[in-house]
């Protein structure tokens, strides 16, 4: 096979594009105090904001919106990568991200997560061939039903040549 005829291993561009509209199974995520503490610590934000015995409902780190969404999307990261014929070993990367918070994330609250794949494009650049996958999540407060946040993301999946 000539160099110009080589194709990225795995799924074709059409197969990848066919995943647009696929819904995540979704689920729910409770912002437990220990989790909020550790995430804030890892983010260098000061875990004293989520002290043991603190009030339920205190604002949690805003990163919890993305975290809740991805923890309760209903598939693992490897399962998500596999939707597009990729895996963690291929070196997937974040492309872009947007979160809109309609209300603060709060310690002790449970959030319902839903979402779907919104775009899938094959591209090529200096680093080779890659797919750019867009997907969106919506978060609602389980108790009140209030719309709390929207998270849009794009994921870059490098393609190795076969």
């Amino acid at each position: 096979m000539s160099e110009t005829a080589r194709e990225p291993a795995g799924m074709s561009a059409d197969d990848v594009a066919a995943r647009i509209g696929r819904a995540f199974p979704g689920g729910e995520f409770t912002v437990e105090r220990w989790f909020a503490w550790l995430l804030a610590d890892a983010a260098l934000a000061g875990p004293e904001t989520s002290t043991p015995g603190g009030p339920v409902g205190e604002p949690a780190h805003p990163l919890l919106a993305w975290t809740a969404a991805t923890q309760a999307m209903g598939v693992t990261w490897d399962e998500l990568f596999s939707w597009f014929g990729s895996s963690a070993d291929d070196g997937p990367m974040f492309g872009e991200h947007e979160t809109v918070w309609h209300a603060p994330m709060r310690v002790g609250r449970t959030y319902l997560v839903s979402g779907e794949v919104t775009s899938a494009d094959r591209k090529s650049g200096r680093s080779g061939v890659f797919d750019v996958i867009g997907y969106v999540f919506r978060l609602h407060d389980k108790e009140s039903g209030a719309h709390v946040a929207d998270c849009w993301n794009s994921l870059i999946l490098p393609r190795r040549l076969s």
Partner: protein
Amino acid sequence: MSDRADEGVTGADGAAVADRIGPLSPGMRLPDWHVAKVDGEKMKTTAALLRDPTPIHWDTAALRELGMGDRAINQGPLNMAYVMNMLAGFAGGYERVRRLRVRFRGNVREGDSLRAGGVVTDVRRQRADDGDEILCDCDVELSVVDGDAVLTGTATVALPGKGSGDE
């Protein structure tokens, strides 16, 4: 240089941080927020919390195999979180961060020193449940100190306006 925001991010003093650095208007710079040295152990904690199997965050052998050097690569969400910390420090609390859109332009590696900053691009007033609030749009950036920008984007924070309960 500290790896924590000088102002913290949970202060109940609302726009006090913003007020201290001058009139709120386009062109005003937000206070920088620094990371003295990115810690690989935080990446391991984050990988476990997020159930993220991507080895570039914790397995240097995998990094070398992928031709990506030998310093672990920080999770993108942590890079976003540093910008959120900067915004919350400026606005006076987590709950004041209303929108963040970012593009990931490069990798942050274990040991890097970082600076998160921003500049006000627009100031608007809107009605809120407990009175007026001021919405402040910003351009934001996270850069490696003495290096390149690794994340750029835009954000909106809310500051209490006249008549609000938080004023």
